């Protein structure tokens, strides 16, 4: 059952403010003219999120995979959560999530800046990244930046890995993940280049990009070798920020107070391994709360 269905009129009427219509459906069918919110993409201030719709009534079993570019009825947007107003459509983007079902081997990963103005959306298939959008909701606009990211990453590999990179460059699949805004106009992303199913070669870098020219392009400002994995601190911060966006103002304040008290306890721990375990446990606790809220919103 999925209660998160909202009337939007036609998906082509992008600036339309729409009324909330709560509809329960008997089976997982994507209804025409309904807007489905990706609840795990809500901004920290709770105002914006990504959503999707179809141009026709489609059973979940028949929803096409996101890599079908011709005639794909699924469209992705950034919306205002309260009004369901569509701010911007992400061109050629076809990810969906219905009744707990998603396209196998595809993922959509998003992160918002702390001020809830900018968002990165990374679309990955099984082995590589096929689209990255930088969204500015204040304009609003969305630009594709995957080619800029990939060119910068390959330049980094050329200059740091030289012959090792040259030997494999034609076979490497490139994937970006774990995006994070380190400042309002600067973001971090983990970049991986590897050959599917093989342990070597494997190139993992952390890349820092500056947003330039009013958000029309990005420039690599720093690169560093990376483990390719999320740190415990980042996992906690990411979970906290997602949870924050789904809470009421009162609950947000309560969470902030709770977090301050937790930080005092964390800082009193001297052992690094114990501190990491303490952070991981806190992240797990917040993830459980986040998951419970998401399941409620998604009606699962």
């Amino acid at each position, binding site marked *: 059952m999925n209660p998160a269905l909202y009337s939007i009129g036609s998906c082509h009427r992008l600036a339309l403010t729409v009324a909330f219509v709560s509809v329960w459906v008997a089976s997982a069918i994507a209804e025409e003219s309904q807007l489905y919110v990706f609840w795990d993409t809500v901004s920290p201030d709770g105002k914006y999120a990504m959503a999707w719709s179809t141009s026709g009534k489609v059973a979940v079993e028949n929803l096409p995979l996101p890599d079908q570019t011709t005639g794909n009825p699924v469209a992705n947007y950034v919306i205002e959560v309260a009004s369901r107003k569509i701010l911007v459509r992400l061109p050629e983007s076809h990810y969906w999530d219905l009744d707990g*079902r998603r396209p*196998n081997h595809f993922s959509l*990963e998003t992160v918002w800046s702390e001020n809830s103005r900018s968002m990165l959306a990374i679309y990955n298939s099984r082995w590589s990244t096929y689209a990255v959008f930088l969204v500015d909701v204040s304009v609003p606009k969305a630009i594709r930046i995957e080619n800029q990211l990939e060119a910068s990453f390959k330049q980094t590999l050329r200059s740091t890995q030289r012959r090792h990179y040259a030997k494999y460059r034609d076979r490497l699949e490139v*994937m970006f993940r774990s995006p994070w805004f380190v400042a309002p106009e600067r973001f971090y992303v983990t970049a*991986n280049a590897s050959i599917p199913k093989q*342990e070597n070669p494997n190139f993992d870098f952390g890349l820092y990009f500056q947003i330039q020219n009013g958000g029309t392009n990005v420039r690599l400002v720093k690169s560093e070798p990376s483990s390719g994995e999320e*740190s415990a601190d980042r996992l906690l911060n990411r979970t906290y920020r997602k949870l924050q966006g789904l809470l009421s103002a009162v609950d947000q304040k309560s969470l902030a107070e709770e977090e301050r008290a937790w930080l005092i306890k964390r800082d009193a721990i001297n052992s690094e391994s114990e501190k*990491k375990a303490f952070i991981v446990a806190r992240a797990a606790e917040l993830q459980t709360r986040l998951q419970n809220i998401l399941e409620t919103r998604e009606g699962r």
Partner: protein
Amino acid sequence: MSTIAIIGSVVVSQDDADDRVHWQSGAAIDADGANGQNGNPFAYRYPTNDGLDNIHGSAGFPNGDWQSILVPDGSGHPLTDGNGNAYSQTTYTWPGRSVATRAVDATAVPYVVVNPHVRRNAKGIVIGSKAVVTYQGNSVDAVVADVSGPNDIGEISIAAAEALGIRSSPRTGGVDSGVQFEFWPGTPAVVNGETYLLQRA
């Protein structure tokens, strides 16, 4: 117990006592290695792409490094059986067997697909090791037989999904959460009466 990887929001741990690696996550579905060994359909069909899985998104054909997923025929195309069934590969490979039988059949063998960071960070040999997957109180014995993309955590074969009551379509199947993964690096798996070899990278 120590944390050996954090993939997305999933924390992967390894126990000190028996080297057990474990995590809880959703589960994606892998069809690779289904080459008709047991009379079941092939994972991929070429050029029609009407096999169990999507030859573009899942095998990366033709723009990605598809030669690591499909068996190339030497002239720039996937090798088929002559009837449009394309041979695919798993990281685990049975030595000395033919192209049709050397991969692990996703439709017949419950197997686990391991994230490359988890494989790298785990103590002990991972590929070929004993695994157990549990979902809603049901468990299935499995083998760690394949390696996923760097972004994925929690992936099982079609046979494992069917044994656990998880939607098993490699195109739209899988489950978001609630799957417990365990494996024991260095301990050979025994599945369907076959003892697997431990295979280093």
